[in-house]
C-alpha cells in the first residue's frame, strides 16, 4: 500500500536498467529515493519478470543490489503529469498519487517504432520486443511459426528468446543491407561484453535464415495473420507464419521530459556530462537520451544517481565507460538506419492511426501533424499518437511540438487533477 502523497529526496521514473542503476547509486549515498514504474515488477523492458525468473545474471545482480539499497519501489504507478515544479501526479490501481521530489531522474526507456503497411493491423502482427515481453508474461509460443522482420539487434535477441521457448523462427528479415550490418558486427569487437552476447546468440540461432536487405510489404490473413509478403528490392515472396513480429527499432519515450520543459536534440533529451537536462534538478538516463542498449543505460543511470546525490567525482569516474557506449550507440544508429522504401509501404487505404482508423491517404493530405489531428482525428485516440506519431515523424517528417497530459493513458477520475 502506498500513500496518496509522499516525498523523497530523489525520485526516479522508470525501473529499467537505467532507473535501477540511478536508484542504487543515489540510495547508497544515503538519499531517500523512490523509483516509480507503471509495470508490476522492476526490470524495465529487457529484464521484465526477472525478479522471479532468475535467468539473467546481470539482471539478478542489479535487482538484488536495488533491494539492498534502501530505495523504495512504487510499482503499478504510472506518472501521468507534472502539475507543478517538484511534484509528479501518478496513477495507481487504488487511486491517484502525488509524489514530491527535490531531484528528478527520468529513465522512461524507449518503445518500438511501428510503420504501417497493408495488413499490419491484423491480430498476430506484433512488435518483436512486444511479443518477447508477452512471452515472458506467459504467452503460448511453443510450436508457433514466427517470422521476425524490421530492423536492429533486437530482432536477434527476440529470435533467440522465442526459439528457447520452443517457437520455430521461419526467418529473420533485417531491412538494413548486409554491408552495414557486417560493419556493425566488426565495430562491436571493441566492446567484448556485447561480442560474447552476440556470439552466443548467433550460435544458438544456427539454422535460422537471417536475411539482410529484406523488408515486409504486406501481412496477409482474414481475422488473423497467416503469412507475410517480403521484398528485397528485386523479388517479392510470401512466408507462412502464425505470428509476424515486426518493428523498426526503438524510439525514445520523451513525453515526460517534454512535459517538464527539457530541450531535445535530434529527438533525444539533451543532457550534460552529469546527465543533467536543460531543466535544473532534472536528470535523464538510458534510452530517452539516445538508443544505446542496456549497458549504456546502466552507466548513464549510475552517473545520474551519483550526480543527483552530490557525488560528482564518482559520476566523473564513469565518463570513459560512457564514451565507449556512446560510440557503440552511434555505430548502431548508422548500421540500422531506415531505408527510404519503408516510407512508401502504406497505400492510401492503409490504416495509419489504429485508434481512430484513419487511412494514410487522409493523413498525408494534411499540411502537418496539427492539421491531421484536427481534420482526421489521427493521433487523438486512446494511445494519444504513441504509435502513429512516431510513424508520421519518419514517413512525413512531422514533429510533435508538445505533449499534453496524461503522459500515459489514465482513468478519467484521476485526470481532472492534472489541470490546475
Amino acid at each position, binding site marked *: 500500500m502506498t500513500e496518496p502523497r509522499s516525498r523523497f529526496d530523489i525520485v526516479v521514473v522508470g525501473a529499467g536498467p537505467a532507473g535501477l542503476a540511478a536508484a542504487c547509486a543515489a540510495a547508497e549515498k544515503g538519499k531517500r529515493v523512490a523509483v516509480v514504474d507503471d*509495470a508490476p515488477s522492476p526490470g524495465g523492458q529487457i529484464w521484465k519478470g526477472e525478479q522471479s525468473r532468475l535467468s539473467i545474471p546481470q539482471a539478478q545482480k542489479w535487482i538484488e543490489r536495488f533491494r539492498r539499497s534502501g530505495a523504495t519501489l512504487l510499482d503499478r504507478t504510472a506518472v501521468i503529469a507534472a502539475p507543478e515544479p517538484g511534484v509528479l501526479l501518478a496513477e495507481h490501481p487504488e487511486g491517484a498519487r502525488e509524489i514530491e521530489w527535490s531531484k528528478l531522474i527520468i529513465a522512461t526507456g524507449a518503445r518500438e517504432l511501428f510503420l504501417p503497411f497493408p495488413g499490419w493491423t491484423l491480430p498476430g502482427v506484433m512488435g518483436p520486443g512486444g511479443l518477447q515481453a508477452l512471452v515472458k508474461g506467459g504467452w*503460448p509460443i511453443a510450436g508457433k511459426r514466427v517470422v521476425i522482420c524490421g530492423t536492429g539487434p533486437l530482432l536477434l535477441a527476440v529470435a533467440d528468446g522465442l526459439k528457447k521457448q520452443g517457437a520455430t523462427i521461419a526467418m529473420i528479415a533485417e531491412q538494413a543491407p548486409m554491408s552495414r550490418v557486417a560493419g556493425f558486427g566488426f565495430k562491436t569487437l571493441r566492446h567484448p561484453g556485447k561480442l560474447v552476447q552476440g556470439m552466443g546468440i548467433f550460435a544458438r540461432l544456427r539454422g535460422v535464415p537471417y536475411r539482410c536487405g529484406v523488408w515486409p510489404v504486406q501481412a496477409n490473413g482474414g481475422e488473423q495473420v497467416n503469412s507475410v509478403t517480403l521484398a528485397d528490392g528485386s523479388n517479392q515472396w510470401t512466408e507462412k507464419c502464425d505470428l509476424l513480429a515486426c518493428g523498426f527499432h526503438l524510439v525514445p519515450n520523451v513525453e515526460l521530459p517534454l512535459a517538464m520543459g527539457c530541450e531535445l536534440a535530434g529527438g533525444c533529451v539533451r543532457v550534460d556530462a552529469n546527465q543533467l537536462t536543460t531543466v535544473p534538478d532534472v536528470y535523464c538516463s538510458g534510452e530517452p537520451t539516445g538508443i544505446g542498449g542496456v549497458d549504456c543505460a546502466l552507466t548513464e543511470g549510475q552517473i545520474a544517481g551519483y550526480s543527483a546525490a552530490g557525488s560528482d567525482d564518482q559520476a566523473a569516474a564513469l565518463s570513459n565507460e560512457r564514451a565507449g557506449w556512446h560510440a557503440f550507440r552511434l555505430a548502431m544508429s548508422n548500421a540500422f538506419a531506415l531505408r527510404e522504401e519503408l516510407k512508401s509501404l502504406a497505400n492510401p487505404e492503409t490504416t495509419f492511426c489504429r485508434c481512430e482508423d484513419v487511412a494514410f491517404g487522409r493523413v498525408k493530405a494534411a499540411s502537418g501533424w496539427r492539421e491531421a489531428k484536427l481534420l482526421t482525428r489521427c493521433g487523438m485516440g486512446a494511445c494519444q499518437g504513441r504509435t502513429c506519431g512516431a510513424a508520421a515523424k519518419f514517413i512525413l517528417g512531422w514533429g510533435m511540438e508538445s505533449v499534453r497530459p496524461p503522459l500515459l493513458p489514465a482513468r478519467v477520475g484521476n485526470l481532472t487533477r492534472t489541470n490546475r
Partner: protein
Amino acid sequence: MAERVQLRVNGKSVEVTPGTVVAAAIAMAGESKFRRSVSGMPRGPLCGMGLCMECRVTINGLSQCRSCQTLCEPGMEVLTDD
C-alpha cells in the same frame, strides 16, 4: 510451481502460473481478436508494453483494461471483443 491461478476468458476456464499476464491467458484460451476497432476491424496486442492500447479487454466488468499490463488473478472474468 505448485501454485496455479484459475480464471475465465469468455466463459472458458483457463489455468495459468502466477505472473502470467491476462493477454497470455486470452491467447491460451485460443482467442486472437481482443477487441474491434472503431470501424469494426479485429485487433490484438501490438506493443506488449502498455502503450498502444490494442490489447484492451473487459476484466471483472471494467472495460478498457490493458491485458498486457494486468496480471492474472484467481477468479478473474475476462471478456474480449466487447
